[in-house]
C-alpha cells in the first residue's frame, strides 16, 4: 500500500512537472477558458543580438546539394570502415578503399574551393586547347591535394598531438593568401585584355588571346595551393592507423577523382569559348570588340570569384 501511494505521488509530481509542455502548432484563437484572446505579441526582452554569416546560395539550397552532401557523408563512413579493415590486415580491400576514395574525390570537387570557377573563368578569358584544359584542371587539384598531404606530414612530424588544430590554423592563413592571389590574377587578366585591345590593330581576325603555359601554371598554383581539409582528415586518419602508404595512395586517388571534375569544367569552358568565337565571327567589324569583351568578362569572373571566396573567409 505504502509503495502504491509513493508511486502515485511520484507519477503525479512527474505529470505536474511537464503538464504545461505541449507539442502542437500554435493556436492563436481564443479558447473558452480564456477571457481575453491569446496574446500573440512577444515579450520585450533585452538580449544581445548576433550577426549571421552565411555561405548558402541557390545550389546549396537545392535537393541535389543535400543528396551530394549526404552521399559524401556515407562515403566518409565507408572510408573510415575500409581504413579499419586495412589496419586489421585485410589488405584484399585496398581496391575497394581506392575506389571509394576516387568517387569521394569526384563528388567532393563539386563543392566550392576546388578551382572549377577559376578554370571556367580562365578559359573564357583565354582561348585554350583541350590539353591545356586537362593540365590546368589536373594540376589545380593535384596541388590542392598534395599541399594538404605535405602540410599534414610536416605537422605530423613536428607535433603529432596537435596536428589537426594546427593544420586548420595554417589552412585558414593559406586560404586567405590564395584568394587574394586569385583576385590579383583576375585583375591581371582584365588588364591584359584591356592592354591587348588598346595596342592591337582594329582589323578582323587579329585578336590574340590564347592561353599560355606560364599563365596556366600561375593560375594552377594560386588556386590549388589551399590545402584540402577533407584530404587532410583522411590522410591523418590513415597515419593514425599506421598506414602511411594508404594515406598517400588514398590522397592520390582522391586527387585524381577531383581532377576529373575540374577537367570536365575546363573542357566545357574551352568548348563554350570556341562556340562564342564562332558566334562573334559573324559580327563582322564588331568581332574584335566582342572577343575582347568576352576575355574581359572571363577576367572579371575570376576576380569576382576571388573577392567572393576571400569574403567568405572573413
Amino acid at each position, binding site marked *: 500500500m505504502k509503495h502504491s501511494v509513493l508511486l502515485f505521488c511520484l507519477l503525479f509530481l512527474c505529470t505536474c*512537472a511537464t503538464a504545461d509542455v*505541449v507539442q502542437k502548432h500554435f493556436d492563436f484563437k481564443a479558447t473558452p477558458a480564456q477571457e481575453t484572446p491569446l496574446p500573440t505579441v512577444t515579450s520585450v526582452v533585452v*538580449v544581445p543580438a548576433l550577426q549571421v554569416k*552565411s555561405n548558402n*546560395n541557390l545550389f546549396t539550397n537545392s535537393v541535389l546539394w543535400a543528396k551530394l552532401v549526404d552521399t559524401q*557523408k556515407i562515403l566518409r563512413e565507408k572510408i*573510415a570502415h575500409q581504413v579499419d579493415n586495412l589496419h586489421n590486415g585485410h589488405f584484399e580491400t585496398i581496391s575497394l578503399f581506392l575506389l571509394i576514395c576516387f568517387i569521394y574525390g569526384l563528388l567532393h570537387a563539386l563543392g566550392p574551393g576546388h578551382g572549377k570557377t577559376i578554370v571556367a573563368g580562365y578559359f573564357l578569358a583565354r582561348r585554350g586547347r583541350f590539353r591545356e584544359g586537362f593540365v590546368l584542371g589536373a594540376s589545380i587539384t593535384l596541388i590542392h591535394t598534395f599541399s594538404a598531404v605535405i602540410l599534414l606530414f610536416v605537422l605530423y612530424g613536428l607535433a603529432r*598531438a596537435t596536428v589537426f588544430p594546427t593544420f586548420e590554423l595554417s589552412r585558414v592563413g593559406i586560404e586567405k593568401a590564395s584568394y587574394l592571389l586569385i583576385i590579383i590574377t583576375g585583375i591581371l587578366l582584365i588588364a591584359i585584355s584591356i592592354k591587348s585591345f588598346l595596342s592591337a590593330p582594329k582589323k578582323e581576325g587579329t585578336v590574340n588571346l590564347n592561353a599560355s603555359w606560364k599563365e596556366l601554371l600561375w593560375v594552377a598554383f594560386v588556386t590549388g595551393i589551399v590545402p584540402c581539409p577533407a584530404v587532410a582528415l583522411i590522410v591523418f586518419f590513415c597515419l593514425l592507423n599506421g598506414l602511411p602508404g594508404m594515406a598517400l595512395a588514398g590522397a592520390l586517388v582522391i586527387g585524381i577523382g577531383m581532377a576529373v571534375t575540374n577537367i570536365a569544367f575546363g573542357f566545357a569552358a574551352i568548348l563554350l569559348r570556341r562556340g562564342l568565337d564562332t558566334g562573334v565571327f559573324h559580327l563582322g567589324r564588331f568581332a574584335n570588340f566582342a572577343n575582347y569583351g568576352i576575355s574581359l568578362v572571363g577576367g572579371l569572373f575570376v576576380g569576382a570569384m576571388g573577392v567572393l571566396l576571400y569574403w567568405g573567409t572573413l
Partner: protein
Amino acid sequence: MIRCSFAFLLLSATLALAHPHIFMDAEANLVFNEKGFEGVQNHWVFDELYSKAMLESVDKDKDGKLNSEETKALQKIILPPIFKFSYYNYLALGSKFVTPSQITNFTASFEQGKLILLFLTRFDIPASKNYTMLLLAVTDPTNYIQITPDLNKSKINAPSNLDVEYFVDSLKGMTLFDGFSSQIQGIYIRFRKVP
C-alpha cells in the same frame, strides 16, 4: 550562345561557396527553469575521421579516453572558435538572433570511434505573462560542418509554473533565416508564466 554562357557562368558561380568537411549529427533539447528559457542542451556526434583527429589532439595519456583535463582542452579547441556561429544554435527572438550568454555542463566522450559532446548553450530569456516566441535552428550556415539535426527527438524540460508549446517545421518564409539552407527545419517555441 549568350544564354548558354550565362547559364554556364551561373552554374560555376553557384558552386563557388560552401563546402562541408566535417559531418555531425545533432540533437537539441530545450531547457526551461522557473525564470524562463534557460538554453539548449546539445548532443553532438561527430564523424569518425574528425573524431579520431580531435581525440589525437587532446589525448595526452594515449588511453583512447578523455579525462577531465583532456575534456577541458577539447572544449577550448572546439567551442570558442564557433562562438561567432552561436555554437550552431541560432535562436531567433523577434527580429534578431540572440547571442548565447555562456556554455555550461560540457562533457565529452568517445564511443564506437565517434566523439560525442554534450553541453548547454545558455540564453537565459525570462518568461512573462505574455507569450515569448522563439525559433531555434541547429545548423552551420557556412556549411563547413554539415550538421544533421534530428529535431523531432527534441525534448522539453519545463517547470510547472511555465506554459510551453512547441512544434518542428520548415524555416521557409522566415526572413531572418533567409541565409540558411531552405532544407533545414526549426523548433518553434512559445512560453509564458502560467496565469
